[in-house]
């Protein structure tokens, strides 16, 4: 029997929580588990998963990005304006454009964090305000409406690609999952992507191992920005109407998804698959609370805050126990030859 790695165990535990939460609400709400619930959650996850995936890359390097929501908003507006002025633009070019816009903002964040040495919480807290005011200035407080958009873009989020057991898998959701899986494969297989974990676990050791820690942090912020930019395009396609408050609060939601998904806030551990499941969990709870009669929908945020707090607490307690266990094992093994098994 092969032993499961802690990462796999964590994802299995997360899936169990997901099933339990679903089962709980299914017992509370009539006609709960249906295709509509799946559609609603999958359309929402398509956007949040991309942002949570980017947030995970940043958190892996021991940083945080509070500006992702503002990037989503700016990209949603800018791509909307772009496609309005040039309706014949090829979809691929539009997607590339959204990635480039986001990457540009990520580059600003990354340069300030990695090369100017300003802590990420400060840079991105400020960037959140700066990018948002850039959006206000750029848009002239005008809105984009669905009527301005080409039909293919409006259809994209609802386009059913294939159906499994009566559940429609729509284009935006499938695209988001494919991207998350690709990022996951890169993180587990590719050497440059592994550097994110090395830098997050121990920046000094990573430097000594010949990894350019600064460039790695910069790359994480650029990638997170690019993913948020793409999420902005998905946001535009799903909602159609874009105002200056588009994407507000997504930074917190993405952190919640990542932390619930088992990404360690101290950097160096976690996976984007976990963040994806975390995003599903957050959306499942939000969508279910709206329909649960016992509490009003205004309980959403309080529950979300409580969830984050319990997830990080559980993580800390678990880590403490593991460290204690390891110390005990090492003490027991001390007289014999020490064979470190990390």
């Amino acid at each position, binding site marked *: 029997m092969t032993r499961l790695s802690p990462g796999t165990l964590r994802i299995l535990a997360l899936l169990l929580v997901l099933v339990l939460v679903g089962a709980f609400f299914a017992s509370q709400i009539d006609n709960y588990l249906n295709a509509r619930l799946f559609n609603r959650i999958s359309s929402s996850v398509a956007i949040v998963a991309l942002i949570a995936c980017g947030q995970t890359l940043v958190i892996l390097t021991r940083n945080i990005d509070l500006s992702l929501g503002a990037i989503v908003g700016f990209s949603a507006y800018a791509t909307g304006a772009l496609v309005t002025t040039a309706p014949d633009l090829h979809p691929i070019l539009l997607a590339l454009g959204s990635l480039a816009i986001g990457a540009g903002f990520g580059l600003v964040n990354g340069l300030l964090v990695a090369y100017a040495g300003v802590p990420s919480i*400060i840079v991105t807290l400020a960037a959140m*305000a700066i990018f948002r*005011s850039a959006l206000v200035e750029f848009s002239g407080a005008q809105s984009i409406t669905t009527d301005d958009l080409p039909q293919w873009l409006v259809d994209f989020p609802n386009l059913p690609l294939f159906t499994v057991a009566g559940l429609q898998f729509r284009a935006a959701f499938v695209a988001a999952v494919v991207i998350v899986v690709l990022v996951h494969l890169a993180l587990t297989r590719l050497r440059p992507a592994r550097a994110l974990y090395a830098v997050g676990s121990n920046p000094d050791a990573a430097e000594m191992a010949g990894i350019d820690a600064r460039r790695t942090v910069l790359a994480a912020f650029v990638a997170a920005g690019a993913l948020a930019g793409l999420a902005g395009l998905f946001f535009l396609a799903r909602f159609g109407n874009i105002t200056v408050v588009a994407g507000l609060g997504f930074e917190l939601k993405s952190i919640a998804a990542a932390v619930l998904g088992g990404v360690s806030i101290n950097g160096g551990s976690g996976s984007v698959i976990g963040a994806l499941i975390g995003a599903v969990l957050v959306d499942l709870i939000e969508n279910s609370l709206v329909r649960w009669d016992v509490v009003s929908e205004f*309980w959403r*945020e309080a529950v979300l805050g409580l969830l984050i707090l319990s997830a*990080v607490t559980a993580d*800390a307690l678990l880590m403490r126990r593991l460290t204690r266990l390891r110390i005990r094992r090492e003490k027991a093994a001390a007289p014999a030859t020490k064979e470190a098994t990390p």
Partner: protein
Amino acid sequence: MTRILGPWETFLLVVLVLIYAANAWISPEFLTLQNQVNLFQLSIEKVTIALVMAFVIINAEIDLSVGSMMGLSACAFATLVGEAGVPAALACLLCLGVGLAGGFLNGWFVARMGLPSLVVTLATLIGFRGVARILLEDRSIGSFPDWFAALGQRGLIGPIPLGLLSFVLLFVLLYVVLERGGFGRKTYVIGVSRDVAEFAGLDTARHKILIFMASGLVAAYAGLLFAARVGAVRGDVGQGFELDIITMVLLGGVSIFGGSGTLTGVGLAILIVLSLRNGMSLMNVTGHIQTGVVGLLLIASVLIPRLGTRLARRSPA
């Protein structure tokens, strides 16, 4: 004299004088006593919270939940007075109690559980706001007792309202505590290195919890000030205030890594942010852009000292 005004404080003073001169040049009304009182009055909640935030950051932690705690306290007050019919004075005490409890919650998770304050207070930023929304949902509650509204809106001593008076008193009190007392010295020591403070026999967990409780208490008080000043409360009271508050503290020369900074600097930075916003309003700059400028100021206030030390290290002394 150099003890009170370090190089950074002197720099802030020069910037402040320049902004004041520019504002006075744009509008002669700027320097009148009434405008100066209004300057504070419009942001009295932020500047009051900033004073305690200085302690939190010197102690090498951060409290992102203050804006939400402010909202929670204001909403709890509105619910108690407007819907449950609790006497306003009692409701005030209860809200301050909520602030202490929320601060204790933050402090306990940070100091006893060893979680990063960034994550804990980010979670309570969402959580406290969530409780405020549960209380008020999408309603707005006003019509508080006359004496309560008067405290927020009219002058208590001459033209000076309660909020400004309590800000000045709190500044003096905290200045003495930070610069002269043992509590202040412990705050610096723990901020420089928690391990060293622990080895020196300090109860660092207790100290951190006390500071978070003070932060919660003052944020709750600021929520009450807001309710009194504006006269109506909604679920989004205090949303996004943490940006201005943290900017004031860091611009004041408090290191984000903890262990250094003075309340004099924070006081000057408060005046700079207030007069800068006031000046931009005089020039018809919109609120969103003002927030963007404050964001730039925040980055600059951390970037400039860092570049300064780097240059100083490079050039041979």
